[in-house]
């Protein structure tokens, strides 16, 4: 298999929620930084996200959570990832996530949480470090 020439990131939001803002902003920033972004969009299930991630052969899954469902949704996502044997894909999350929950999410297997107010350059730097080319 030939080496990937750019980093591939899937961005999605789980569950019923129309707050697309953060996901759009991050997608735009990652594209401007030369990454390939698969924008899956709103109202996805954890299973849909994982299947799309496998199909699109992404390095990173980025989940936007804007209505407080992060613990349940990401826990299900990571469990399904494990079930599919695709733990090589790194999961990151962002949105309206209280500080208190970050440690819990990281323990569940989320590699990094980028809460409200994150500078998009932090996400870019993180991804570049995690996925060296």
């Amino acid at each position: 298999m030939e080496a990937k020439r750019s980093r591939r990131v899937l961005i999605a939001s789980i569950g019923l929620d129309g707050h697309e803002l953060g996901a759009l902003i991050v997608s735009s920033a990652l594209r401007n930084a030369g990454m390939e972004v698969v924008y899956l969009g709103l109202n996805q299930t954890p299973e849909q996200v994982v299947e799309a991630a496998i199909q699109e052969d992404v390095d990173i899954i980025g989940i936007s959570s804007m209505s407080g469902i992060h613990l349940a949704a990401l826990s299900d996502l990571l469990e399904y990832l494990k079930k599919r044997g695709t733990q090589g894909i790194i999961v990151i999350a962002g949105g309206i996530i209280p500080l208190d929950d970050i440690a819990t999410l990281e323990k569940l297997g989320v590699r990094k949480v980028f809460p409200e107010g994150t500078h998009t350059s932090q996400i870019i730097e993180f991804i570049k470090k995690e996925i060296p080319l």
Partner: protein
Amino acid sequence: MRHDRSNSPDKREKGFITRSGITLKTIYGLEDTQDIEYSNEIGNPGQFPYTRGIYPGMYRAVPWMKRQPMGFSSSELTAERYKELFKKGGQVGYKGEPATTLLFDMPTNYGYDSDNPKARYQVGTVGLPVDHIEDMIAFMRGFPMDKGFTNMVIHGSPAILLAIFIAAAEELGYSPAILKGSGKNDPFQSYLAERIKLLPIEAELKLGMDVLEYCIDNMPAWNPISVSGFSYHPSGLNSIQELGLALATAIAYIEAGMQRGLEFNRFAPRISFFLSGGIDFLEEVAKFRAARKLWARIMKDRFKASNPKSMLFRVYCLTLTTDYTAQQPFINIIRGTIQGLAAVLGGVQALGIPCYDEAIGIPTESAQTISIRTQQIMEEESGVGKTVDPLGGSWCIESLTKEIERQVYDYIGNIENMGDDGTVLKGVIAGIKGGQIIKDINEGAIKRQRDIESGETTVVGLNKYTEEEYVSPPVFRTDPEVARMKIKDLQEFKSKRNLREVEGALERLRDTVKREQNVMPALIEAAKKRVTLEEAMNVFRDIFGEGD
């Protein structure tokens, strides 16, 4: 603690601009307003064009309503929270009667029942779950429908939710004629801001007009369309664009109503507005003044309104949550105060101040209390309401008012030009279908983020004066057990009802839709026969197709 200097070049070289991009002069003076003719362009409060206020006495006669948006977990818990807030003097209408703004959970907004697999994670998390009439009855048992004012912020299914509301009130013995309040009923906003597109836009508009027609005939104290500009702002527009789009969509709804054959003077007075209140103090005061003037002029010039009541811009302001930060959250209390004060000086009819923990989750009761106290101090200590439009006559404020009016007219004109028949209605629909309006909104959001990241826009605590460690306020969590109970109760409810009556009601609803009749009577009957929200929505989905 570190002081960060933001990276932007010295602002003195770039000029001083408002959040919406108006350049402010060093000083305003007489020469800036001497061409403004007072009686034509400003007028006294209560006189056309209502720039100074829609009523002569404003807060001297009637205070503004104080309504905090609320809703979570279940009807019982929401009613309980409402009662607590009312005890604190919050959630009150013009005469101190109970008033509330209800938010619904995502499944309800998306037209799904709590037990639908798609509702996973979201039952009761950001609003009240309403699956059927008994959920609404449970809330109403805690809220006096005969005295109170209910504002319902519902996205994808306003006709169904209003029908459930009416059915519940009737079952409790209240006539729809006495119900006071307002419902969002703004499908253009659902498409553009909430991104909830359950049915094709034409179908949603048709149902919206059904609601309008029904309310004209049966609910004189209800505001059947609350044009909701608010969410355009967090989505990416600035205050002036938000006002422009709100007014454009309002014009479109009026045109739709008239095309439908509804009598203008009967429904125009019942249209109300829901706008954001931003942090740029001077601009916000001017914005609300410009809004009144714009609406009065639009109604008079475009629609030849003769009834003065048709020209009054009645607005509920919710201060702008995207001005808040998750960092150092207690400082959001200051932001809410500045935003709220601008809205009061701007002359709004109702005000809500989102809580300081809004950037972290839905509010705790103590955070709600602070927002309530903020309004009480504004009203009873600051004295700003003791005279009407105190900033009127300020050379700066009058100049800004005039400039905002000019920009909003341009904005509406652009929307009108998106259509091909000279109506704003066609323009809005074309702008939605062609993607232009959403594109502008999204680009606004991206630019706003860029300006914050570059330091061009200062946000205290976020890109300047940051703290290494910051305090996490108490986080409100909905109890997942309550969501589980809701689903269990729903399944029991569905199995206990008379399925023949349910089927019969659904059949009648289907028939009504196919005959293109007003759906409200059939929806109300369906609610009484224990049809669920999703079952009713599925009739619409089947016949109209899905949205987008």
